[in-house]
């Protein structure tokens, strides 16, 4: 970026860092349940860690282990994970304008592009704070997410039979937690209801993993129809510390 930007004052810098770290801690905590569910689904420790470092997008990671646990095919797991990750591409589009990165920094920025880092970044009024917010949050979440994934996997391994401890109920509960903050608009609630019904209608007649993909059509139809609440479909929240990990 050729435009001259004033440096952030100490006070603002501290404020932004505090936001980054609080979002990092709040989000990282979810990784404990991810690690536990992943080993309960039958992934080993290294596969669980690989998902957190390489995939690094909460909803997609939960979907992969959820579909594997339900006996779904690898193809269905990959397809669902990828559809869930589409929004990160859109975040990348927004962040590339604000960050102005190239080369290796662009690769790093892309990997750290998730709900939380984008939300904290775009919520800042000044350009330099936007960059600090994005990088600080992305790094804080990345470090804590990976450390707590390992903790969750080790605890999950020690527990043994997942059903005895209700881990098969923990997985849909985790998806509820991820879904909750996205249900603020009427349109979103309608899409959620329709897609749940579609999935349950399709489920008895198709292999595991497929009902969820069929239900995604509800989103595509809803997105292409004219919307009733044009400004409230919530791609990003302005209160990132209440958001679950993407």
């Amino acid at each position, binding site marked *: 970026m050729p435009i001259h930007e004033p440096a952030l004052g100490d006070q603002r810098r501290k404020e932004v860092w505090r936001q980054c770290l609080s979002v990092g801690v709040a989000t990282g905590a979810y990784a404990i349940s991810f690690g536990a569910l992943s080993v309960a689904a039958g992934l080993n420790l290294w596969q669980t860690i690989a998902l957190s470092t390489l*995939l690094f997008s909460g909803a997609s990671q939960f979907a992969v282990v959820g579909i*594997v646990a339900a006996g779904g095919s690898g193809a269905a797991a990959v397809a669902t994970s990828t559809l869930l990750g589409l929004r990160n591409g859109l975040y*990348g589009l927004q962040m590339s304008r604000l960050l102005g990165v190239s080369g290796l920094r662009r690769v790093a920025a892309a990997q750290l592009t998730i709900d939380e880092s984008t939300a904290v970044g775009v919520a800042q009024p000044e350009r330099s704070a936007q960059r600090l917010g994005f990088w600080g949050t992305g790094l804080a979440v990345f470090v804590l997410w990976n450390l707590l994934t390992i903790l969750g996997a080790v605890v999950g391994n020690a527990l043994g039979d997942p059903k005895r401890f*209700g881990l098969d109920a923990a997985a849909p509960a985790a998806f509820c937690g991820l879904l909750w903050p996205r249900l603020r608009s009427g349109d979103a609630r309608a899409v959620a209801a329709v897609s749940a019904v579609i999935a349950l209608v399709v489920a008895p007649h198709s292999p595991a993993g497929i009902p969820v993909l069929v239900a995604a059509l509800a989103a595509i139809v809803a997105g292409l129809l004219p919307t009733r609440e044009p400004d409230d479909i919530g791609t990003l929240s302005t209160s990132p510390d209440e958001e679950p990990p993407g």
Partner: protein
Amino acid sequence: MTLWTTVLLASGLAFALKFLGYVVPHQLLDGPALSRVTAMLPVALLSALVAVQTFTGSGGGLTLDARAAGVAVAVTALLLRAPFLVVVILAAATAATLRALGWG
């Protein structure tokens, strides 16, 4: 597909999507309809995952068991603004308790 293939393929595609946002020309992907679809996709997928993982048994048939009670408790906890980890633990504890008592 082996588990490793699934893990690495999902990871590779996830990164490709993130990176694509940084390299494609902005006007190419900027339509309002696309933004709406992108915002609604997680809602549809997550909601379908909740439904399927709560109400279907092995083979995809509809069942009602301890998981439904666990998820009902999770939704109540979310309505009461409980943190994520508490929501998940309450759901697991509910299902585990019901099973220990011999239900579901």
